């Protein structure tokens, strides 16, 4: 029995990534990181800004995404997101821009705690990316 299942990452403009042979995907779910293996129970969950790790037999790839929804059903994992980029192709200037924006946003005192938490996460992830 193969351990592989299908992954789809879709953003509004296109199907960003389709892979038939993933073994494990680690997604930054709202309530903590979550690894999804084959035959996982059907689940719908939210993502916070973070890194998706896509593990196949031969490789391990990382993607940064800003938000999203995951749906896992019948060994099909779909990730809907408004912004996704492969970490290795993430341009420094773009990253810094996002970081700056996020830092500006967090100083805004009117936003609620949940949003603050999300932006906090975003800054953390972006910072860790910019170091590498």
């Amino acid at each position: 029995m193969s351990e592989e299942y299908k992954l789809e990452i879709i953003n509004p403009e296109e199907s960003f990534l389709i892979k038939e042979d993933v073994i494990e995907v680690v997604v930054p779910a709202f309530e903590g990181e979550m690894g999804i293996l084959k035959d996982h129970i059907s689940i719908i969950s939210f993502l916070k800004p973070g890194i998706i790790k896509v593990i196949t037999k031969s490789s391990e790839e990382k993607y940064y995404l800003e938000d999203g929804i995951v749906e896992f059903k019948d060994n099909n994992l779909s990730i809907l997101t408004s912004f996704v980029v492969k970490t290795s192709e993430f341009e420094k200037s773009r990253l810094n821009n996002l970081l700056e924006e996020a830092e500006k946003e967090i100083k805004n005192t009117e936003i609620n705690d949940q949003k603050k938490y999300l932006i906090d996460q975003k800054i953390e992830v972006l910072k860790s990316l910019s170091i590498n």
Partner: protein
Amino acid sequence: MPSLDDLKKRISSVKSTQKITKAMKMVAAAKLRRAQENAEKGRPYSEKMNNIILNLSNGVSDKESAPQLLIGNGEEKIHLCVVLTSDRGLCGGFNTNIIKKAKMYFQKILNENKTLKIITVGSKGYDQLKRAYKENIIENISFKESKNTNYFDADKVGKIIIEKFEKKEFDVCAIFYNQFKNVITQIPQEQQIIPLKNSETKESVSSTSDGDSYEFEPEEDEILGNLLPKNISTQIFKAMLENSASEQGSRMTAMDNATRNAGEMVDKLTIQYNRSRQAAITKELIEIISGAESL
């Protein structure tokens, strides 16, 4: 009978018009390919989104506490219509078809004594509607500057709609756009987005009730509350993509027709020109011959 010179001028003017329409057709064809590609690429996202929402709304146990975006706020007095049109003209019946469809809907609402509010996206729609429904139009949004349809623009429209809904400025929201079927056919569509009314909902309720349950994290309500505003933007984005493909398709057909018509006109005018030239020559010949005969 126009003189030879006049005919010559007309022929050359029609020919240059033909050149323009031909160029426009080519440009539209090139753009159409891209727009069509984008529309097709964008479909999976909105479809998946719809699916997830369907599954979720089936999972909501307590219909009473469901978010208002899904079930509405119990009233339907004020209707908001978002009419999506193009920013440029010369695209055949593209804009007129949408407006026609929208106007029918407007009339229906006004006949039922409900309040009508209109948001137009794209300047052509505004131009056509402002005469008859000036006081109903509350906002006119135009994305003339952005070259391609992008999600960011759609999100802007979506946010405006949601903001207005939260302020209770309307109860029901519908969008109007052209669905791209193929280059020749575009179907004007009316789609209700608030409350979410899906013709497929009823069928899928029965088909998914066979214990096809999901695990949710966080709770359903929270996911729904987060997802529905996004869905609005997504639906609008989808409409915009379909619209831009339709616009180019419509323009291509219109310009193709115009080019063909211009060609026909040139042919006709050329025949007329040749005939009258021939007539003039014959006349001169007769004059010469009869002049010679009389000597």
